[in-house]
């Protein structure tokens, strides 16, 4: 603990860097996954291909991808863009599956009703599918956000400063406190992001605040009716 207080400036700088490196991939991954997930859901054939591509992308080990980035996108080796682009790819890979599943979970009858009333496909997506898929999308986004925050730490092996730098430094400096601070810092950031997403979800989807636990409602109803 005393190590943390005496080096707070360093830890704070690394935390800010870490947060910045995490936010962009999450947002980019989410936005780009929407059209891709929609296509995967709509055209059955493409679903298998797109999800497999996502699987390949996700399986690429992070360290070689970071090292190969400058060759792929023409940046300098120390550029944080390398980490952001690579992490966006991972976020995208994770999110595509969730988006496809979320859009698939919208009940068919609701979609048909919307078509019957006269919604165009574009309008139906924004007014019906997206709000109904919202909770599942949010759940997926929370997973992606936590994974991204955790994965940023590998960027320290290619010189992009973040809280993960404290693992390597702590290891070389025989400083367990530094390693722990890095781990705990990352966990805290991930939890804060998670909280922010939950709040954002409540803000944008107020209908989910109503009681949704069907089991509890059902039990309560049974009790009330049978007096059991």
């Amino acid at each position, binding site marked *: 603990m005393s190590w943390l207080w005496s080096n707070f400036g360093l830890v704070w700088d690394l935390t800010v860097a870490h947060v910045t490196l995490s936010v962009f991939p999450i947002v980019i991954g989410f936005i780009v996954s929407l059209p891709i997930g929609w296509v995967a859901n*709509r055209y059955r054939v493409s679903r298998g291909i797109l999800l*497999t591509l996502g*699987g*390949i992308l*996700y*399986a*690429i*080990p992070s*360290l*070689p*991808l970071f*090292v*190969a980035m400058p*060759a792929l996108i023409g940046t300098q080796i120390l550029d944080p863009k390398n980490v952001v682009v690579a992490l966006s790819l991972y976020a995208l890979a994770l999110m595509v599956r969730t988006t496809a599943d979320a859009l698939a979970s919208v*009940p*068919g*009858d609701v*979609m*048909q009703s919307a*078509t019957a009333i006269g919604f165009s*496909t574009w309008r139906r997506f924004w007014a019906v599918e997206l709000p109904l898929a919202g909770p599942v999308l949010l759940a997926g986004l*929370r*997973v992606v956000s*936590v*994974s991204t*925050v*955790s*994965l940023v*730490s*590998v960027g320290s092996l290619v010189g992009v400063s973040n809280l*993960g730098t404290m*693992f390597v430094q*702590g*290891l070389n400096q025989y400083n*367990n406190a530094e*390693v*722990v601070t*890095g*781990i705990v810092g*990352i*966990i805290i950031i*991930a*939890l804060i992001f*998670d909280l922010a997403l939950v709040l954002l979800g409540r803000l944008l989807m107020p209908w989910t605040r109503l009681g949704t*636990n*069907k*089991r*509890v409602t*059902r039990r309560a109803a049974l009790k009330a009716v049978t007096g059991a």
Partner: protein
Amino acid sequence: MTDILAAFAWVFDPTNWAGPGGIPVRLGEHVWYSLLTLILAAVIALPIGFAIGHTGRFRGLAVGISGALRAIPTLGLVVYLALITLNLSIIPPLIALTILAIPPVLAGAYSGLESVDRRTIDAARAMGMTELQILFKVELPLSLPLIIGGLRSAALQVVATWTVAAILPVGGLGRYLFDGLAVQKYDEMLGGSILVIALALVTDGVFAIVQRLVVPRGVAAGKVQDVRTKDPWRPLGPSVPNHPLGTSL
């Protein structure tokens, strides 16, 4: 591009398939470590997930703890465990990766059980089944696809992340990444990456097949079709939906 070609050349070079550091050995180690991790995670997470899904309680707590476990950076945890236990075997990475694998398996288990229609469970209860009988004879068979889905997602993560453990003197495909990087043999490093990706794909494929096979016969797989999907017979008249009775039964 030449790097990637060199990597493929490395993978198919027969000298890399021989000896104690050869590809079959490393592949075998990697598969063994991943399997061990998955089994451990399943043993821990499945019973807890079933309990949560069946009773419907503690779901919020489970989601919260899963989130926190997912947030732990694997590299950091492996380094930390090795430092405090001064154990350089597969134990620290095994613990770290099991912790990493628990959230998806847990989520698969409780969401699988939650997806079972409550009316079916009510019917089972009405027939006089005990809670355990309901769990094993009704809920589990019906939720197998989602449970397998959770295991599949965990397997993918575990196979991809065991590479990180090679910071310690353990085997597995991660050895090619670390050893290749150490001596600037990029063909070895990228070749190892290709092998990891291939293994992950095979793993994903196997689980996908299993997921499809475990859906019990007799489960109505009906889904109301979206009429706007391109129907080749459309010009000839109104299309006939596939399942006129709909889904809910």
